[in-house]
């Protein structure tokens, strides 16, 4: 079982990213669980979302404390040391930044803010950061996640779907292994 914690700020889509990743895994026949931090809605405050993916049914309902992967979708949060508490020894970190911070983990970086501004015109980094995660870990196939983008954003029109898929694909190409 792979356990993931996504750090972002309230309103940025950390929870949506977690749900989309879980749905992509379920599309592939895997089992998945995704849940937000059950706090009050706090726009702009640091929030977390959690994902479990496994090839077997998932029974636990406890919070994730020792993740395999940590994703930080907001660049102002990457220096918070507590984000990486409990991360496993060979854990992976995926950061929204253009400069490595060398935390001693298997580190991947992507300037997701720039990509989202270029493609979507707004700094909505959750889908680009899932592109980086999928490139770094191969946890699901990119095509599965693209399917989920299409169903999630179907109500927002073809152009929005197209732009988000473009942002997702660019992120897969541009993410760097430190």
């Amino acid at each position: 079982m792979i356990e993931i914690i996504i750090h972002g700020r309230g309103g940025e889509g950390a929870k949506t990213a977690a749900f989309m990743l879980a749905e992509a895994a379920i599309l592939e026949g895997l089992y998945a669980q995704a849940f937000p931090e059950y706090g009050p809605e706090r726009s702009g405050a640091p929030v977390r979302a959690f994902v479990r993916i496994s090839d077997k049914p998932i029974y636990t309902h406890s919070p994730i404390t020792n993740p395999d992967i940590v994703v930080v979708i907001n660049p102002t949060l990457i220096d918070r040391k507590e984000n990486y508490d409990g991360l496993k020894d060979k854990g992976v970190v995926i950061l929204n930044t253009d400069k490595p911070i060398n935390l001693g983990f298997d580190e991947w970086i992507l300037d997701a803010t720039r990509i989202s501004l270029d493609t979507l015109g707004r700094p909505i980094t959750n889908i680009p950061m899932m592109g980086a995660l999928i490139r770094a870990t191969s946890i699901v196939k990119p095509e599965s996640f693209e399917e989920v983008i299409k169903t999630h954003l179907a109500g927002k029109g073809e152009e929005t779907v197209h732009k988000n898929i473009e942002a997702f694909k660019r992120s897969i190409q541009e993410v760097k292994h430190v």
Partner: protein
Amino acid sequence: MKQKRIGLTGAHAAALAMKQINPDVVAAYPITPQTPIMERFAEYVANGKVDTELIRVESEHSAMSACIGSSAAGARTMTATSANGLALMTEIVYIAPSYRLPIVMNLVNRALSGPINIHCDHSDAMLVRDSGWVMLFSENAQEVYDNNFIALRTAEDSRVLLPVMINQDGFITSHSLETLEVGEDKEMHEFVGEYNPRYSLLDTDNPHTLGPLDLYDYYFEHKRQQAEAMMHADRVIREYMKQYSELVNRPIDVVEPYRLDDAEFVYVAMNSTAGTLRVVVDMLRDKGVRAGLLKIRLYRPFPWRDVKSLLGDKHKIVVLDRALSPGATGGALYQDVRSSLYGLSTPIVAGYVYGLGGREFTEEQGLRIYEELRDLDDNEPFQRFMGVRE
């Protein structure tokens, strides 16, 4: 039957089941403490996916009152609520079973205030424990979905005619996406079938009286009949669980044992904690401890014969309650399990209250319970706490 595996939150799983049931009437109060169940169901109504008359009322008290009116008129009726919403409707919650109305309600279990809290525990369900509703609990989104179909058939069966409540853990289940298998709308609706009410106030050719003053002359007899209907529910719900289980090809029963056969140390729990305890049992088994779990899925009527036959020969049993019964001899589930085993000489039955107001329950806590109790040798009804700072 063809099924597909999808990801849904517990709340959306309940809404999907309601859509497939396509009830005649749903009455609900549309703001806090309502949950995404009603939000999603209202979308189905707005998009024409169901024919349901959705009545938006001015309070939870009115929600259950409207449900009672529509069910008495012979309409298939459902609703959903949570926490203090249930508390406000409690006066009317007691009316539904006394009129023998087969209403089905999804309850998202959240703490009753105060202090003010919106997170998971079972104090809301335990508030109405003795109201006369059949009560099902759900480990995950799959069980929420499945329980809805089983609940409706049981409620409407003429041997029962009682309302049924389907519980799921607030946030932990209601707001978490999980993997579940769902059937096609048509086939799932076929399982519940069309509703032909045995009594309807609109059936003027067969008039009947409902809800008159019922004093010391007949009140007791009517309450006795409610008790009898609850006993029938114990048998009838097993029939529908079996029938549904064959339809979906998943084992479903009123209780679910896990690694219980040779177990010496047994956890008993309801709702999402049962899932976490499976993992705890596996961890203890890996260390050579003969641990097991009994999940209670049907809470009212309480399946005491199953508990007695499955746990009667065990060495040590620990019952986990997610609601506080101050001053009682332990939590409500603890009392039920302990009295089911009364008179049997062997088991030590210990109780813990845990997870109040959304305090998380972890595998580590499950293991600590074993450590705390491994050497316990008295059988006093002492209320223990797990996960609290003191």
